[in-house]
């Protein structure tokens, strides 16, 4: 009797969930994944020697990743709503262990120790860490005693973010480490002092400045700038404390010098080149800027309606390297034209806005923070990857979610989104904390 009741209850909950599932997100998810597989097929398709169905082809592999991710996604959906909150610390610890384990068991590809390889399958734990960190932050922020205005809480949150960032930088994978910056949006939403955002923006501007101009020039400029600023303030307010201004000035100088040091001594030539290209320091078409140039040509040549599926000559000519992974957007741009690219952008924008919108409707901090983190992660990938493909952002090798080829990325983003859907679907059952 009670058993039957229990099952009936379960089924009811499940049906309830089904009705409350964020179907818009699900539909966008499927559209993006389909676009991805189609374009991977196109960008790796060899006219000379190819049948349409080839089980070794990357498109087929991506399809397999998708099916696997989808199955695990269904399990995620069926999990009890409190499952992820309960196990978030464990998942986080597990992902950190995976990152640490890389140094011992990792596989070096192109100078990056970023992969585990088992039975021919490569796993990139940094991808999983993105999801795990999101969970961990949501969990931490949902604790009652947490208050982002307090130093202790702040340092706890930063610790959660900084550990995977450092481990990722040590691989070294500059691009993926940069992605963890997206959690600043979550923290801001949950009450982080706006000054942090201000300083982040300031430091980004200073960084670009420091990389573009000789260090001496920047120092002189900073001195002049803060000097003038001080005198203007003095003119207006008569009495100005010089102390905070001096502190910011010294900090800025130190920061600029350290940027210079990192750039000159720590970054690999590959990353240096990429930064140089972005900053317009060099124009070497066959060198590093080549990828970017070819990508822009491919996208630009797509025109309004594109050349048609499998008709991209830039793509077929293999002019754009890594086109099935980081540069997949250029293949879309060439073959589907402006219609295609704008559709993809609308889909991503809708997805992000949709998740942000639902995040505000969550009844507890955990749900809201998790959803916010999910949206931020997708936003950051979208921003960097598409921006890079059209030359607005430095060439940083990170995948376009749901679209780029890669099992780890596919699995992570599927799980990320499906956990959000699960939490979102259960929001009515949650108590407000």
């Amino acid at each position: 009797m009670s058993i039957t009741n229990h099952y009936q209850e379960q089924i009811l909950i499940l049906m309830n969930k089904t009705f409350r599932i964020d179907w818009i997100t699900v539909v966008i998810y499927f559209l993006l994944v389909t676009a991805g597989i189609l374009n991977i097929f196109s960008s790796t398709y060899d006219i000379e020697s190819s049948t349409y169905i080839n089980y070794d082809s990357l498109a087929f592999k991506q399809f397999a990743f998708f099916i696997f991710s989808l199955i695990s996604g269904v399990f995620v959906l069926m999990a009890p709503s409190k499952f992820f909150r309960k196990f978030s610390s464990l998942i986080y610890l597990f992902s950190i262990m995976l990152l640490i384990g890389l140094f011992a068991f990792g596989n070096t590809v192109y100078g990056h120790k970023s992969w585990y390889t088992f039975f021919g399958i490569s796993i990139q734990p940094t991808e999983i860490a993105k999801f795990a960190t999101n969970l961990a932050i949501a969990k931490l922020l949902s604790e009652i005693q947490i208050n982002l205005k307090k130093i202790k809480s702040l340092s706890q949150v930063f610790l959660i973010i900084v550990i995977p960032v450092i481990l990722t930088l040590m691989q070294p994978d500059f691009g993926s480490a940069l992605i963890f910056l997206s959690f600043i949006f979550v923290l801001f939403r949950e009450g982080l002092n706006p000054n942090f955002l201000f300083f982040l923006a300031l430091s980004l501007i200073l960084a670009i400045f420091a990389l573009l101009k000789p260090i001496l020039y920047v120092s002189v400029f900073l001195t002049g700038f803060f000097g003038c600023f001080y005198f203007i303030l003095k003119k207006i307010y008569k009495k100005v404390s010089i102390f905070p201004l001096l502190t910011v000035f010294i900090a800025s100088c130190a920061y600029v010098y350290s940027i210079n040091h990192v750039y000159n001594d720590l970054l690999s030539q590959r990353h240096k080149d990429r930064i140089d290209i972005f900053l317009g320091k060099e124009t070497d078409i066959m060198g590093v800027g080549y990828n970017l140039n070819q990508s822009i040509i491919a996208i630009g040549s797509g025109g309004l309606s594109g050349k048609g599926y499998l008709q991209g000559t830039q793509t077929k000519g293999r002019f754009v390297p890594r086109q099935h992974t980081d540069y997949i957007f250029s293949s879309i741009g060439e073959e589907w034209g402006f219609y295609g690219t704008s559709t993809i952008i609308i889909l991503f924008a809708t997805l992000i806005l949709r998740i942000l919108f639902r995040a505000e409707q969550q009844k507890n901090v955990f749900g809201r923070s998790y959803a916010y983190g999910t949206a931020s992660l997708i936003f950051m990938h979208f921003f960097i990857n598409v921006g890079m493909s059209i030359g607005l952002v430095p060439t940083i090798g990170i995948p376009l979610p749901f679209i780029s080829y890669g099992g780890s990325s596919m699995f992570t983003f599927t799980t990320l989104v499906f956990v959000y859907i699960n939490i979102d679907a259960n929001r009515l059952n949650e108590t407000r904390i």
Partner: protein
Amino acid sequence: MIRIYLLKFLTILISSIFFIKLFSLQVLDKDYEKLSQNNAILEIEDYPERGFIFDRKNRVLVSNQPAYDVMIIPENLSPFDTLSFCKLTGINKKKLKLNLESARKYSKRLPSVVVNQISKESYAELQEQMWKFQGFFVQKKSIRDYRVNFGANVLGYVSEVNTEDLTKDSYYRQGDLIGRQGIEKSYEKELRGKKGKKFLQKDRFNRIIGPYKNGKYDIEPSQAQNINLTIDIELQSYGEKLMKNKRGGIVAIEPETGEVLALITAPSYDPNILVGRKRSRNYKILANDTISKPLFDRALLAQYSPGSTLKPLNALIALQEKIIDNETKYNCNKGFYYAKNAHMDCNCRYGTKNDLISSIHRSCNTFFSRTYINLINNSNSASKGVEKWKNYLESFGFGNYLGYDLPIGRPGLIPNSEFYNVLYKGENWSATNIISNGIGQGEVLATPIQLANYACALANKGFYVTPHFVRTRKEEKTKIKLSKINTKVETDYFNNVIDGMHKVIEKGTARIAKIKGLEMCGKTGTVENFTIINGNKTQLTDHSIFIAFAPKENPKIAIAAFIENGYWGSRWAAPISSLMIEKYLYNSIDRRNLEKRMLNGSLENEYNKPLSGANFNINE
């Protein structure tokens, strides 16, 4: 409020920026609209024109002429009308198929040559119909144009890189030219310059419509350098004419500077036949001639016994070692017995008494054999004596590579004690065993350029400068160090030896070489030589050798000539050398009869003797 809307706002902002950028990229920008029709950028190597080669008087020896290669990028290939293609380019169908296959094997994306150097006319015709042939394009490049028919051995030649070159140096692409021999090889880097890159825009008919982005990304080739040779092409050509129908080598050097004025090998070939499409066929013909070996540079590679030309050097060594002095005299009775039943023959008459000078101009074997024995016996053992003697010879540039700036050479040979230990199976050999070295007939081997260098050392009274073929260019380092290399014989000892060599011309063995009004020094040589016919060691007619320099004071030219099977030294080598000296110093020839005899003389009969299979007489 701001906390809730910041990310939403950013999302909308970024998406809008992307929209605008993509709209301008894909819809507004006509550049890319154009690109959508033609798309592919063609990368072409921009070859700097290969450097010119001049002679010492700035006469052009080698320049360039345009040639057009039909190239292919296999990936872009689509089916085409092979028949009309073959007709246009003059290639046959089988060859075309083969070339396409090898191009595909080399690289699908990098261009390869399909048809080599088509004519200007077929280039024009082909260019008009290029749209029919997707994946093909024409690359203009320049090939060598030899302005002279002489000096092939010095100039060398260029040819297409082979697979080995491609793997050794990634600078080269299939179809590139590389210096293979001579100056073209040893100064390859200077002559070729450094190629640049051009990016060209193609339209959808595969036609090149102009530079991509106005050549913004092009890399300029760096200019190739021109090279001035030390060779005097007039002297070179005169020497080659004199050597017609003879075999051997002549090397003329300016003693003070070590600049090689002429390097002649005979037989030779016209450098122009190794250019362009006919190159490989002609090369095969030259390489297959194993009898006269036109590709074998006798001036640098042939190692001959120096014969009597070594006598002045042995005299110098003996003087330096105080074995003889200017007063030393030896009796010669048509030779002498240096051991029981062992007689050294000589051309002197019975009862001739020779001092240093007369022994040189009479080329007295007795004098030099006795001196050599005394020289060797002057040391504790014959081994030590030989080693000491060897060191002197080496200081004159014998027995090792000279280090000149051409890619080929031979070290020659100076036997050391080890050599004789092996030859005589132990150390129980003595000076009398190796007595032939005293008259240059022993185991010593030298190349003509080594002999010419030795003549320089004699002319300079004790030093030489490493022979070289490229004049020093101010702005760069030369390939070789050009400094005086001192011999181990002091200058004072040279005077009497040189007087002796002067007498050789005035009243000695080489009177035929006398040029009126010119003080010239020389030494003849006659070298026995053998070949093997049907397993039997058979003696052939002697080689004719001559070394000389002139004028006696402040010598301007030193020369060594080696004429295979020319019999005695003053029969061919001395007159030919003397004519070359006359030509170089006076730029005209007075001795018309002698010149005519030398130009028309042929030794072909002599060379045919051992091949005829019949019995033959030598030295007639």
